[in-house]
């Protein structure tokens, strides 16, 4: 292995001890994030992703300011075309609900689903992958068989089953999405752990008497996280898509104005009022795109082999 030793320190010491460290006195945590930001910024696509993401977050945050009131209330005459009525700039659906209001409030639901489902799936994946990768042997075998069992069922079919059994309230949907998408992060974390547990610093920690759990979560996990962080963006995009697909099939939570619900209901009038499904569709497209662009940018930025 070559050492990632590109910095100032690779030169041999002069004969006389004590060894001097010729480094400028700077705040290290700050420079670290600065370097990351500089690398991220160089990737134009990633910057675009970041801008889109910030736009979605702003929409979610300002929903009550820009489009106050319940997005599900009737706000105009049904099926108003966009850009014709000042109070409904993006038009209305067949029940006369304001589409712009739906998009802004829907951003909250989509982001919440994306974040919570991702946290659930990554948490399950990290725990299972870490334990399997660290201990290996029978534990690994057992956990991986469970993972494979989950992977053999198409995740959307499993999601439909779970929602069909437990109902389609928003909480159940989020948890179900988390449960069907933990397998890929688990495999990834396991692979990272299998290579990292052989490193000498793990032996060094064991030799100090550090417990297994502490080694897994405090020694190895921080070193295994970068690829997982990147992958989280993919999981988040997928979660939003899955919720939309559920809503499209009419299995979404009808009490919330989610983008998927809007497409699902707009489908009935697709030929006469295309905007009812196209506008939320574009919103989903851009949000998912923003996550995958950012993920790619993060991947490049977190890659230690890249120069600053």
């Amino acid at each position, binding site marked *: *292995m070559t*050492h*990632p*030793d590109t*910095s*100032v*320190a*690779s*030169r*041999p*010491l002069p*004969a006389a*001890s*004590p*060894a*001097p*460290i010729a*480094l400028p*006195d700077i705040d*290290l945590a700050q420079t670290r994030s600065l370097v990351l930001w500089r690398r991220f910024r160089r990737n134009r696509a990633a910057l675009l992703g970041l801008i889109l993401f910030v736009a979605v977050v702003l929409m979610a945050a300002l929903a009550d300011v820009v489009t106050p009131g319940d997005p599900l209330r009737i706000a105009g005459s049904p099926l108003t075309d966009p850009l014709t009525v000042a109070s409904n700039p993006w038009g209305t659906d067949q029940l006369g609900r304001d589409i712009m209001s739906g998009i802004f409030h829907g951003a909250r639901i989509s982001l919440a689903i994306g974040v919570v489902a991702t946290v659930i799936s990554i948490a399950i994946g990290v725990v299972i992958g870490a334990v399997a990768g660290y201990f290996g042997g029978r534990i690994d075998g057992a956990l991986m068989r469970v993972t494979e069992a989950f992977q053999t069922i198409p995740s959307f079919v499993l999601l439909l089953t779970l929602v069909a059994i437990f109902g389609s309230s928003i909480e159940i949907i989020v948890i179900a999405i988390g449960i069907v998408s933990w397998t890929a992060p688990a495999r990834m974390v396991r692979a990272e752990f299998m290579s990292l547990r052989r*490193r*000498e*610093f793990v*032996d*060094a*920690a*064991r*030799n*100090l*008497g*550090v*417990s297994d759990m*502490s080694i897994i979560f405090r*020694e190895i996990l*921080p*070193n295994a996280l970068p690829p997982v962080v990147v992958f989280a963006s993919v999981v988040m995009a997928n979660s939003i898509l899955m919720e939309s697909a559920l809503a499209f099939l009419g299995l979404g939570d009808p009490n919330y104005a989610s983008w998927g619900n809007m497409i699902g209901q707009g489908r009935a009038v697709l030929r006469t009022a295309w905007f009812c499904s196209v506008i939320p569709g574009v919103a989903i497209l851009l949000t998912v795109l923003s996550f995958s662009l950012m993920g790619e940018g993060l991947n490049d930025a977190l890659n230690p082999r890249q120069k600053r």
Partner: protein
Amino acid sequence: MFATSRLLCRRGGDRPHALWDFNLTVGEGEIVCLVGESGSGKSLAANAVMRLLPEPHVRVSQGTISLDGQDLLSLSEAEMRAIRGDRMAMIFQEPMTALNPQKTVGWQIDEVLRLHTNLNKAGRKARALEILGDVHIPAPASTYNAYPHQISGGQRQRVMIAMALVLKPRLIIADEPTTALDVTTQKQILKLIKDLQQAQGTGILFITHDFGVVAEIADRIAVLRLGELVEQGPAAQILRSPQHPYTRKLIAAVPALTPPPEKPASGEPLVLEARSLRKTFAARGGYLSGKRNPVIAVKDLSFQLRRGETLGVVGESGSGKTTVSRIVTRLLESDSGEVRIDGRDLISASKTELRALRKDIQMVFQDPMASLNPRRRVVELIAQGPIVQGVAKDVAHARARELLSLVELPPAAAERYPHEFSGGQRQRIGIARALAMEPRVIVADEPVSALDVSVQAQVLKLLADLRDRLHLSLLFVTHDLRVAAQLCDKVIVMSKGEIVEAGPTARVFANPEHPYTRSLLDSIPGRDWEPPVCNVA
């Protein structure tokens, strides 16, 4: 025959020129050793001569390189390709990565001949077999059809040499060709290079960091320091009376082969005792691949270590010495046997007993980069052990800062991350971490083999110094007999998992009884050369 003059290589990085005013000639039938520490630019010089620099970031900005009067820098890439392999050839450090794992040895030698000669298929094969015989490969015909992973490291290096020599080149550049090999193999390879070179009159530019190897092989020596040649001259003169302070420093850092005088049997208490340790690695076959034979790594091993004593475990790769260090610290479970620290058995200890026992036996690892968690600050790394053992965090941190000065690191080091340090400094951090536990025994697994000689000498001195001041016992695992001679009171020599000889270092080195010990001692490069005592300015 071959000369470079006023060669400047430009690149970004820590200095404006990677090589500065580099003048070197290699005469016919001459072995010139280019010596320098890591980062001195010696491999870069070799690549510049072969025109294998990663242009345009690194390029020759000024000067000439000539081979038999022909200026290499003015040649086109196609002309250069014809010269590489034909009139000059290169031998690399790591033969496993330099050979293509997908092709047989024969195919790879054949390729060289196919590219540079007009021989037909039968002629090429005959020539390949002949050269394999010349490099003393047993059974050339079967090696011809073998893949690189099927032959040993020493044989792979012989194949590399065969490939370099097959066209009888004028110049061979050997970049640390024996660094990855065991001493006994190294000795054979050095002899082979020297014999073949004398038979063919080839000039060799031999790049190395090891003064022992230099003493063994060099006709002339050039010393490179941070891209500048500080001294060059005939081997005998430089080895006996080096002029430049840097050369003196390098030579002074070479550990002398004189072990410490035998200490009288001390009345010090026994600290560590290993009794009939045994470890077998069960080779796990798949369901389809059938069973493979288990490998015996350590067979019935026992030793004793008293307070303040240093016990060296020496042997070649595969002798089981690293397994010993892992068993003794119980990083690896042994199959049977006992390891007693002050009479308490480590092998049969329960989990909670083990945690308390670990305090007494600490380890310093081989690779100082890999053994420090890159995500933790130095002070956290050092204080981690005591905190796990129940010391309050602020007390442990304060103690960690004291330890930094004990291992001669500045206090500011505490807040930094491991990657900001050089190899030697990292190893000091590793030592401080071991000391933080206030152990009775420190197990050091090749702690200096990844370091430059001058840094090596400092770390060894630090270890010896700390051992004496803190009354520590050291179990010192090494493949380098010079290092063992420097530090160890007693040694055990291991071969194939067994102790073949044990005793006080002075006695074992002066009168080796076992043939294996004798061959190990005979193979130490430059064993006839006594480094002069120089005053290091």
